[in-house]
């Protein structure tokens, strides 16, 4: 009896002690509690869908709740690589669009950064204006570009006529649709490359340029042998960024051509979208997505190797 009352008397003290212990334990492990919510969330909403996609790529499924997915093993992948003409077309379109636009954007962006890397009147305004193409709502911009490209009353059609160039059908012709989309992409993203490169150029120490000048290096030599190697990490980072986003371009192409005319501008991303949400081939679309992810990943690995470089 006595021991029991003692026990009861003991209890509040004990729980107070354990409360302090708990809060101390929480405090000591606080670093994990800081990241835990984000980790849990990203796992649930980002990682698990990716795992699910990989799993679903082994099934055939129309998405109907009544019919469960049917196991097909690696059949979807076999179909992708065994000459699906839609996939081959999409692969070509994606490589063409991404390859050319990223190359032009890098060249132009670096060139413009060289031009603007000096003090001049209205520098702040110029920089702000150049952010606009990058920040503007892609759907709205694509609608405007779509109409500017209109073969019968678009302003580009008029420009071409005024400059006495041969008339163009822009997005309406299978041979010019990708160059036209590239021009749109270059317009939208060159400023980003330029701004990133500019940030890299600004951080370079000015005294090395003085040294180069004393040694009698020409501006051309200075650019190729001094500036370019020094800002290479920045440029490679910008290229990786552009590559990733360019392969995934959706809004602009979907709004301006929907992959047309025919399938002339159907990139992988649009092809997957069609397979999934138009034809409800969820299993096949998942296999395509896995392939797409590996294309992006390997492209990045290749680009990252330029960072260290061979020189």
């Amino acid at each position, binding site marked *: 009896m006595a021991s029991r009352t003692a026990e009861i008397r003991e209890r509040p003290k004990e729980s107070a002690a354990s409360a302090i212990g708990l*809060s101390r334990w929480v*405090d000591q492990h*606080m*670093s994990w509690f*800081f*990241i835990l*919510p*984000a980790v849990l969330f*990203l796992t649930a*909403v*980002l990682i698990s*869908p*990716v795992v699910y*996609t990989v799993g*679903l790529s082994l099934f055939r499924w129309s*998405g109907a709740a009544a019919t469960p997915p049917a196991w097909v093993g690696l059949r979807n992948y076999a179909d992708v690589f065994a000459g699906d003409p839609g996939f081959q077309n999409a692969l070509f379109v994606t490589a063409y669009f991404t390859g050319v636009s990223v190359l032009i954007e890098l060249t132009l962006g670096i060139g413009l950064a060289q*031009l603007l890397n000096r003090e*001049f009147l209205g520098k*702040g305004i110029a*920089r*702000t204006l*150049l*952010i*606009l*193409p990058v*920040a*503007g*709502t*892609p*759907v*709205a*911009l694509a*609608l*405007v*570009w*779509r*109409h500017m490209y209109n073969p*019968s009353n678009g*302003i580009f*059609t*008029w420009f071409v*006529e005024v400059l006495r160039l041969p008339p163009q059908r822009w997005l309406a012709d299978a041979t010019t649709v990708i160059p036209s989309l590239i021009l749109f992409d270059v*317009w939208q993203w060159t*400023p*980003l490359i330029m701004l*990133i490169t500019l940030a890299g150029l600004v951080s370079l120490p000015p005294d090395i340029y003085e040294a180069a000048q004393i040694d009698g290096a020409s501006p051309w030599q200075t650019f190729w042998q001094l500036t370019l190697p020094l800002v290479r990490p920045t440029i490679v980072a910008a290229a990786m960024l552009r590559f*990733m986003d360019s392969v*995934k*371009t*959706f809004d602009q192409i979907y*709004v301006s051509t929907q992959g047309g005319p025919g399938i002339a501008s159907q990139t992988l*991303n649009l092809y997957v*979208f069609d397979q*999934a949400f138009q034809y409800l081939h969820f299993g096949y*679309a*998942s296999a395509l*997505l896995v392939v*797409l*992810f590996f294309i992006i*990943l390997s492209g990045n690995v290749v680009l990252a190797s330029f960072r260290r470089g061979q020189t």
Partner: protein
Amino acid sequence: MIGKSVRPRLARIARRILFYCVLILVLVVFIFPFLWMAFNSFKTHEKILEYPPAFVFAPTLHNFKNVLWQTPVVQHTGIQERPAASSPFVRYTWNSVLIAFGALGVGMVLGLPAAYGIARYGHRMLALGILICRMIPGISLLVPWFIVFRALGLLDTYTGLIIAHLVITVPLITWIMIGFFEEVPKELEEAARIDGCSRAGVFLRIALPLVRPGLVSAAILALIFTWNSFLFPLILAGVKTKTLPVVVYSFMTFDYLDLGGVYASSTLVTLPVIIMVLLVQRQFIRGLTIGGVKG
């Protein structure tokens, strides 16, 4: 004698003029589509169709009225005029605002502690994971989301769309804020710890107030990204929760019937973005280079 000293100066002035000419040309090229968008939104549909393009015309607010009150897009084909009592466009704007701020608010709650954890305690694995997020094509999330959301009844709900856009805002906010938290002087936090402040207290009372400037720019970036998002609402939103980019896109269905609507709605959806860019131009570049799933 005089010629010698004047010539280099002339050359310098000529170079200056050349530079400004090139600069203006570059700026005009990059700004032109925006100007053309705004310009055409004040033209009537017939005027927009004119060729060669009309540069002189009587500006009209007709398109904006049309868009805001969704009066018939195609009067001449006999579609009845809808009562102008309610404005669908205003409701869609409200959808966009609600989802953008929802994804921002929850994104802050999840992203800020994570950024602080990475900056102070070096959880490099999480930082790497956030970088990899960028490589995931947005569509690969949509198939599973669509299936799960359908089962949970989250399609065409604000909750569902906010969850989807958190995939953009959480990595974005985390990645931007890591840099700002790293700049908070460690000594300040250590002093607070010695005074008996808990680690959570240090985060809330010392670190957070000090990163307020970064917070503002991260917030505006998150808002812009969610505002511009098209693919996620295209699949996950329905009649109730449609956001502006989807609505603007739907004007294209009437492409050759109401170009005025296309231009006016494009102008309306872009305007808030331009205002926000003017507010955070410097941090915008930093934010764009990192974090967040896109398309």
